[in-house]
């Protein structure tokens, strides 16, 4: 069994039903040719990286299928090429790693890439004993009534002046 994947972009100007029926016609072509459809991924309306046929968005469909031979793919591609509702298409043969990757992606083992955000190393580990600056030290001492240090500070300050 060989695994293949066909991905095509449908014109977004069509109505929702028309888009779905377009995608369905190609699935029917595949099943009529004896291929077994593994998965149909409706990737939905996506912005294009550059405009195609003066459209800036497109509806992406990805159909994964398995077949004994790839002889009918030329027929499928000809049908896709002649269709005016299809903006772009690509058929790819999948190797065993790609099949495994797609399976894992469907079962949710492969998630979205998390952007790198390293934790800042500047903060100390012990947050309780952390005092940001030496200026706040007298305030902390004043908060504690038992310490007689504030009085000393007051008496000292005129001497310094």
């Amino acid at each position, binding site marked *: 069994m060989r695994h293949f994947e066909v991905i095509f972009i449908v014109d977004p100007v069509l109505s929702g039903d028309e888009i779905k029926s377009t995608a369905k016609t190609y699935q029917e072509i595949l099943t009529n040719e004896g291929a077994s459809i593994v998965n149909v991924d409706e990737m939905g309306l996506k912005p294009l*990286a550059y405009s195609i046929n003066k459209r800036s968005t497109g509806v992406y469909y990805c159909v994964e299928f398995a077949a004994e031979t790839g002889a009918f793919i030329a027929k499928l591609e000809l049908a896709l090429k002649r269709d005016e509702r299809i903006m*772009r298409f690509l058929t790819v043969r999948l190797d065993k790693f790609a099949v495994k990757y797609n399976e894992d992606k469907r079962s949710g083992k492969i998630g979205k890439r998390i952007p790198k955000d390293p934790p800042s190393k500047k903060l100390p580990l012990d947050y309780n004993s952390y005092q940001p600056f030496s200026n706040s030290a007298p305030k902390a001492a004043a908060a504690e009534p038992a310490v007689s240090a504030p009085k000393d500070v007051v008496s000292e300050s005129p001497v310094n002046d």
Partner: protein
Amino acid sequence: MATQDEIKFLSNPNIGQKQQKYCRFTKFGLKHVDYKDPDFLIQFINQQGKLLPRRLTGNSLKFQRRVASAVKRARHLAILPFVSDLMK
């Protein structure tokens, strides 16, 4: 004030050192390059949307070929642009 014993280097010794490059596919055991994932492929192209060379990405030859074909497939499907300005 640091004492004389604590001062070992006049300048930071790590400044001139080169970081060892590695192939992220062989290192992390990735065996497939997905052409439908632009967030992943964007690591291998520059701001103009051009493919970065192996000497910068550190990829092994096998995976550099696969990255290149994946980027080209993504460009055909308008997932990645052929040319752009300030892409990243």
